[in-house]
């Protein structure tokens, strides 16, 4: 809908566009948290710094934005867990996979980068449904904190693939579909993530990590207690250069794909974060939206600390 005036302009007018140089003021660096805790899993905390808008960006500069040597603790149920910094190849496969989801970078590359996350090592320091976790971070002279609770995971009733029939003569492209029954209590939030786990001819997995397409965070404000079906497009690897992200297959799953689905259940503040994150990312360059910061639940910094319930499923894409 936001794009409509755009389409109109393109249809009617000879608009033109040119590169310009913009002098932006310099602001002090902030710390950005991307952390979560899920039932039966270790907590995962990644800390980065904000950068100047036009700073050069490549894998190195992204790696240089990771914050090392922070003091990170989680307080829950009277206990205090001190999180350890684990780097590069020392990461276990599950944490490395999480790091891939959180950075949008192939875990295979991350394993060799100057890259650290904060997690627990104790066998008992795992997430529990219904439990509340307070995160405290102290790094580079800043103090950050956040609180989140792991909600009860709401399962998907069923998942399937359905052809979209949007390109004439096409018999292979479609969307992932799911049916969900929202519990009859307000305050349930959801977020969808999917990964194509079948392999390319090169032997690589089609998606090296889970991707949440923009606009895949929901709350139950309008759907409380309803059972209904919804569909999801395929999210792109934001900085990847796969042919299917550039051609007519963009946004579609394809017959032959196997899709691993994660349906996260999240709370209200976590929903606010992801929904505003989607808006912020999606409105890059959109005049028709008012500039809006992402609504963080972190005090003293930016980003998200999310307790997440998780439901897993798999779709095999058949015509």
């Amino acid at each position, binding site marked *: *809908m936001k794009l*409509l*005036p755009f389409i*109109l*302009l393109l*249809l*009617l007018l000879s*608009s*033109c*566009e040119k*590169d310009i*140089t*913009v002098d*932006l*003021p*310099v*602001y002090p660096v*902030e710390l*950005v948290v991307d952390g979560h805790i899920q039932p039966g899993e270790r907590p995962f905390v990644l800390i*980065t710094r*904000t*950068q*100047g*808008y*036009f*700073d050069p*960006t*490549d*894998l190195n500069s*992204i790696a240089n934005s990771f914050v090392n040597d922070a003091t990170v603790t989680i307080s829950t149920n009277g206990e205090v867990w001190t999180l350890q910094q684990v780097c590069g190849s020392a990461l276990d496969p599950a944490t490395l996979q999480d790091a891939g989801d*959180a*950075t*949008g*970078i192939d875990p295979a590359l991350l394993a060799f980068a100057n890259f650290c996350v904060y997690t627990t090592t104790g066998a008992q320091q795992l997430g529990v449904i219904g439990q509340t976790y307070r995160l405290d971070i102290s790094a580079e002279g800043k103090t950050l904190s956040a609180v989140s609770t792991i909600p009860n995971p709401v399962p998907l009733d069923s998942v399937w693939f359905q052809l*979209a*029939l*949007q390109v*004439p003569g096409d018999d292979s492209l479609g969307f992932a579909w799911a049916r969900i029954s929202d519990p009859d209590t*307000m305050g349930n939030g959801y977020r969808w993530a999917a990964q194509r786990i079948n392999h390319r001819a090169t032997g690589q997995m089609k998606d090296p990590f889970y991707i*949440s397409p923009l606009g895949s965070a929901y709350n139950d404000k*309008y759907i409380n207690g*309803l059972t*209904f*079906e919804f*569909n999801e497009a395929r999210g792109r690897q*934001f*900085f*990847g*250069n796969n042919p299917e992200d550039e051609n007519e297959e963009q946004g579609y799953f394809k017959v032959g794909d196997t899709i691993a689905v994660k349906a996260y259940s999240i709370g209200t503040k976590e929903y606010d974060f992801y929904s505003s*994150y989607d*808006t912020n990312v999606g409105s*890059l*360059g*959109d*005049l*028709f939206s*008012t*500039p*809006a910061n992402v609504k963080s639940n972190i005090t003293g910094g930016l*980003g998200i600390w999310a307790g997440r319930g998780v439901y897993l499923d798999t779709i095999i894409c058949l015509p």
Partner: protein
Amino acid sequence: MATTRCASSLRRNSPTFRDGYFCAPLFALMRLRHLFAPLLFLLSLSVLAQRYSVSGYVTDSATGEALIGASVFIEEIGKGVGTNNYGYYSATLPQGEYTLVVKYIGYADLRRKVDLTADRKVNLKLRTTVQVMQAVEVKSDRTKSDLESTDMGRMDVDVTKLQTLPALLGEVDILKTIQYLPGVQSNGEGNSGFYVRGGGPDQNLILLDEATVYNASHLFGFFSVFNADAVKDIELIKGGMPAYYGGRTSSVLAITMKDGNDQEFHGEGGIGLISSRLTLEGPIVKERSSFIVSARRTYVDVLAKPFINPESTFAGSGYYFYDINAKANYRLSDKDRFFLSGYFGRDVFDLNGNQPGSPKFKIPWGNATVSGRWNHVFGPKLFLNTTAIISDYKFSFAGGQDQFGFKLSSGIRDYGLKVDFNLYPNIRHNVRYGFQYTYHIYTPSTVAVNSGDVPFNIDTPSKLNAHEAAVYVQDDFDITDRLRLNAGLRFSWFAHVGPFHEYITDAAGNTTGTRDYGSGDIIAQYSGIEPRVALRYSLDKKNSLKASVNRNMQYVHLASFSSIGLPTDTWIPSGKNVKPQEAVQYALGWFRDLKERKYEGSIEVYYKDMANQIEYAEGASPQDGGNANYDFALVFGKGWSYGAELFLKRRLGKLTGWVGYTWSKTERKFPDVDNGEPFPSRWDRRNDISVVAGYELNDRWTFGGTFVYSTGQAATLPVQRYFIEGRLVSRFTQRNGFRMAAYHRMDLAATLKNKPTKQVTDPTTGEVSTVQRKYRSSWTFSIYNIYNRKNPYFYYFDASGNTGTVGLTIQAKQVSLFSILPSVTWNFEF
């Protein structure tokens, strides 16, 4: 008014009522007709000597159109009066012989001797300078001198000259033209919203024949809804608003439609690049009743269709707009006249994906207004106009994709009544008083969403109902020959009334319950006293100083999510949380005539304080509006604006036009924005220059040119970025802390008319004579943006490449709308 005050004031001032016994029956009369009450005091002043009134209408002799703001000057006493909105004038003078001199722009002066031994009714018919070109020397082009009036920040736009000015795609546009005036700023292209002295576009009262027009733009803001062919008079008041006007804090743009020629049938029209228009007018009963109908439609959709690939996703899409103005009037007698006028306009935008699964949208929106008016002359000194109004604005957006469907609609409808008395007790006073009432019905954004057969449970929000009323009185008073005062007082009242379904929320914004109000229950009400004072002091015949102070209340607000005006913007009333906006404006001005009135110039300075301004909270979006009160995400704060405006106009000669310069600063301060630090308003422009020139080479060629420059728009840009899940997240800090590049542009136009006269040979006598052509036509060639300036429409940041191999590049880009654009329009008249 208490009895004692009645008695004392009458005794003191009126010899006729000296005995006091008059007071009782008079008081009964006042109770019955209390509307007259404020004026009896003034009436009583005027009965000192034997005085008589000369009154009547000033009209165009050829068309019967009433002339608004014509000056009727009484030579013997060196004073004059002006005609009102219906061409009516009245002057009460001591018994004697007088010479009336009537002046109006584009017309020859008319002199008329009047022997005032009784009340006289003198209707004055002026002839245009074209009609009398050979016969009479044109002495004056002016209506009312800026030097004489108390008006501040008031501009009259000459409609007849609009067509010779360059226009985008040849579409003559009133709203674009007023943006050339000092103190009036535009948003550049793509927006006919205008900003007056730091006020927002919703703070302008736009009236078409007394009816409020809520969204004055077509095509997402590229063109205005006013068809210049049907317009007689345009008046813009940007400060010093008289008490008659209210309900907006910034300005008044009052547009009066033509009445229609009551002598003979005429038509005019034009064929342009994107639209055609046709206007027909003529008498229904000659000199008693006339009509005018004017219509236009764009045909971009028709022209564009062959060029859209039928295979493309957008085949079957279309965009067009049309509007119709119609007006009829009937003169029952010299005392009574009726007018019925209407406007209907619609924009229709269809997006029809022709493939299965592709999105389909239909977005119609538009305004409709109807106003019926009754003019009644009670006596030579009292003129009444009663107006009944219906105004309607609707927007809807229906769309679907696959099994999902949704519909979003909003709108506003007004039913109004205005009763306005013009009283001319004597030559020194011009009094206006009356009341205004409007019943508003708002439909806030209503959303319906379904997935297949399962409708999502979004409540239909209640319509919002409100009463708005005002009483006012104002007097334009010559205190001495040098000092003139316009003092007015307006009392306004507003109430948001039921039925209303209120959501009760807790501190965190979660809905905890609902409450229902019954029909007519008052949910919130506000009132305000709005004093309006303007003074003029004449230093000499060439110089005058003016000062004004005004307080204005505004009870309705336009809540906008986007940074430009879109039809999705919703009008909302004041209510429990939304307080009425207030503005107090102080202005000072120096006005001067130069070179025997060939030039006029002015300098005005102003300071404006604005309270209860509205913005959406950061990150609010329309979809948050379901199952919530209509004022769900608004934040409130204050604002202020100050500035200086310089204006120099050349009025006479082959070359006419003006130069305007404005320096201004507008800021806002909201506790919830930028931690309560002041930030530049979206309408802040430091420097603004406009140059408008017209040159009449001969009776066939006319040239027009315009130049505008303004400081770049304030914009909010991201200052930092970070990555989450590999995506770039922007971090914004200072609201409107960044300036886009300056906007400047020059446009030129040339108009070629066919000869206004032709030679006719009398077949019997062989005598050759010159007669007026019945059919006239002209070509207007215009070039928009002649030096092809790439003005910024908006900026965005584009990220390309990838982090893995080549690195990510972020590039700032500027999008511009119109490069150099020539156009041609053919106009005709018969």
